[in-house]
C-alpha cells in the first residue's frame, strides 16, 4: 500500500559550510556555521529566511553530541518572524533522513510551509565525539558497558563486525574495498577532506585501532554545518531548482535491535546487522520499490562494516553475502558510464562520511538531492531514485527515498 504522503513534499534547498578537520573551525561558533548553512539553503531554494516557519531536527536536536539546537535561539539569530512547527526525532544520527519525514508530517498537517532540517558540528577538544561514551560518568545502565573499556563508537562497532565475520566469513578486505571504492569518488570534490586515491597497501598499513577495524574504517571527524529545506510540492514548483521529491520515508526499528551496541543484547541475526531491516521493509512497502530500483544509494558510513550490513538489510544482496557483493566491485561508481559496476548500485558517490565529511548524515541527504536534480559532481545518469540511510545506532534509525521530479 503506497504511503499516504508519497510525492507530496520535496527538498528544495540545500546549504553547507566548508568542511573543516575536527577542531579547525574555531573561532567560528556553532551558531555562525548553522546560520550559514540555513541562509545558503534559503538562497538555494530561492526563498527568504523570513519564510522559514518550521524546524524538524533529529539526534534529539543535538548539534554534535553535546551542543543543542534551540529554535528560539535560531529565531533570535536569524530573524524568522513566526515558527509553527518545532520537533525532533530522538536518539542520534540514525534519525537523519527520518527528519525529512518529520518535516513532511508538519507540512501535511498544515502546521508550517518551509521546514529546516540541520546539523552543525564543532568538535572542540572537550566535545570530541569519539570519546563521548568514555567521558560520560557511567549511568546505572551504562555501568554494564563502560567498565569493559568499550568507550568509543569504533570499539562498539568492531564487536558487531567481528560477529559478522564469524557468522558469514566476512573479510577485512571487504571493509577495505568499501573505503577505497568511496574514496575513488572524492578526487574531483573541492570540499572533500580526503581526496587522494587509496591503495590496498595503504589501507592494510592503516593503524589497527580496534581489531578488526583500522583507522581508515572509521569516519572522518569534521566540523561544519549542513541544512536542507523541505516544503510541499505545490510550493516546491516555485523554487529555484527541480524538486527532490520525498517518495518514501520511515524511521523506527525493532526491539531486538533496541539500544544496539550500547546494549549488546541483540539476538542473532540482528546482532551482526545494521538494525535497518525494519525501516528498510517499511520504505520498500511504502514505495513498492526494492533495492534494485535505486539508481544511487547514500549509505551512512560512520564505520565501513556498517555499509556492508546495510547493503544486506536493504536487500542489495542477501544476508551474509555483503562480503562477496562488495568485493565484486558492486558499490563502485563508474565515471565513464555514469553508472554502477558489475550490476551493482553506486554507493556514496560523494565519498561519504569516510572520505568527504562527517556531518552526522546530512551530506548524504545533500548528495541525494543533487543526484535527483541531475547536478551531482559524480552524477549517475538519469538518476530517478536515491536511497538515503541514517546511522546504524540506537533506535530510531531511518531512511528516505528521493525521486526526481
Amino acid at each position: 500500500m503506497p504511503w499516504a504522503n508519497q510525492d507530496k513534499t520535496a527538498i528544495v534547498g540545500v546549504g553547507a559550510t566548508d568542511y573543516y578537520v575536527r577542531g579547525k573551525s574555531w573561532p567560528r561558533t556553532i551558531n555562525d556555521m548553522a546560520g550559514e548553512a540555513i541562509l545558503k539553503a534559503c538562497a538555494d531554494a530561492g526563498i527568504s529566511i523570513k519564510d522559514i516557519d518550521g524546524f524538524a531536527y533529529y539526534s534529539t536536536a543535538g548539534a554534535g553530541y553535546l551542543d543543542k539546537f534551540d529554535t528560539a535561539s535560531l529565531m533570535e539569530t536569524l530573524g524568522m518572524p513566526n515558527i509553527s512547527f518545532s520537533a525532533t526525532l530522538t536518539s542520534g544520527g540514525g534519525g537523519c533522513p527520518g527528519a525529512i519525514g518529520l518535516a513532511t508530517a508538519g507540512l501535511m498537517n498544515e502546521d508550517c510551509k518551509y521546514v529546516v532540517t540541520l546539523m552543525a558540528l564543532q568538535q572542540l577538544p572537550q566535545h570530541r565525539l569519539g570519546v563521548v561514551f568514555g567521558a560520560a560518568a557511567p549511568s546505572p545502565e551504562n555501568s554494564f558497558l563502560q567498565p569493559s573499556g568499550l568507550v568509543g563508537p569504533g570499539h562498539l562497532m568492531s564487536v558487531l563486525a567481528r560477529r559478522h565475520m564469524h557468522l558469514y566469513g566476512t573479510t577485512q578486505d571487504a571493509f577495505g574495498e568499501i573505503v577505497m571504492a568511496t574514496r575513488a569518488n572524492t578526487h574531483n570534490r573541492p570540499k572533500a577532506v580526503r581526496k587522494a586515491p587509496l591503495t590496498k597497501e595503504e589501507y592494510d598499513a592503516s593503524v589497527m585501532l580496534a581489531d578488526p577495524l583500522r583507522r581508515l574504517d572509521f569516519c572522518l571527524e569534521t566540523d561544519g554545518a549542513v541544512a536542507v529545506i523541505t516544503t510541499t510540492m505545490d510550493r516546491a514548483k516555485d523554487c529555484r531548482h527541480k524538486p527532490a521529491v520525498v517518495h518514501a520515508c520511515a524511521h523506527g526499528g525493532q526491539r531486538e535491535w533496541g539500544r544496539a551496541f550500547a546494549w549488546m543484547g541483540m539476538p542473532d541475526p540482528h546482532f551482526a546487522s545494521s538494525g535497518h531491516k525494519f525501516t528498510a521493509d517499511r520504505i520498500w512497502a511504502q514505495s513498492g520499490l526494492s533495492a534494485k530500483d535505486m539508481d544511487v544509494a547514500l549509505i551512512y558510513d560512520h564505520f565501513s562494516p556498517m555499509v556492508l550490513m546495510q547493503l544486506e538489510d536493504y536487500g542489495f544482496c542477501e544476508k551474509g553475502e555483503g562480503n562477496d557483493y562488495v568485493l565484486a566491485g558492486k558499490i563502485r561508481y563508474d565515471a565513464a558510464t555514469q553508472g554502477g559496476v558489475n550490476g551493482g548500485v553506486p554507493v556514496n558517490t560523494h565519498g561519504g562520511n569516510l572520505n568527504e565529511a562527517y556531518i552526522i548524515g546530512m551530506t548524504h541527504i545533500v548528495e541525494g538531492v543533487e543526484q535527483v536534480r541531475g547536478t551531482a559532481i559524480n552524477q549517475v545518469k538519469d538518476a530517478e531514485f536515491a536511497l538515503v540511510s541514517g546511522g546504524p545506532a540506537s533506535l530510531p534509525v531511518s531512511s528516505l527515498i528521493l525521486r526526481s521530479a
Partner: protein
Amino acid sequence: MSEPILYGPAKLLPGDQIRISTNPNTEPFWEAAKAHKLTACQCAKCGHFRMPPSPYCPECSSQEVNWPALPGTGTVFSYVVCNKNPANGEDYIYVPVVVDLDGAPGARLNANVTGCNAEDVHIGMKVSVEWTSIQDGWVLPNFRKA
C-alpha cells in the same frame, strides 16, 4: 589480506580506574557481585532473563524479579581487541568480550577476558568469572579463559 597481529597477553583493565553507579533496579546485581556471586535479573513470573536489570519484564510486564545464583561460566559471543588504555591513552592490550551467561538464556555481560593471548580469544570460547575490585568498594565481573 594482511597477517593477523600477535598482541600477547590479554589484560584486564585496572580496577582502580573503573567506576560504576547503581539504582534500585541494578543494585542487587552489584551487591551479589560484591559477595563474588554472579547473578542476572530474571522475571519471577515468566522466567525471562533481562540484562541490564530494568523495572519491568519486557515479555509479561511483571515487576517481580529473582536473582538466581548462576554457575559463573559463559561463552564468548563476540569481542574486540583494543590496544590503548582508555583512562590515559597508553599502550595496553585488553579484550572487551560480550559473554552469553550459562544458566541465564538471553542475558549477556560485557567485560574483559584474561588468561590467554589477545589473538587467541575467539567466538565460542568458554570462560569463567573473575572478580575485579573497582572504585568505591564495588566488584566487577570479568572473565578468564576456562
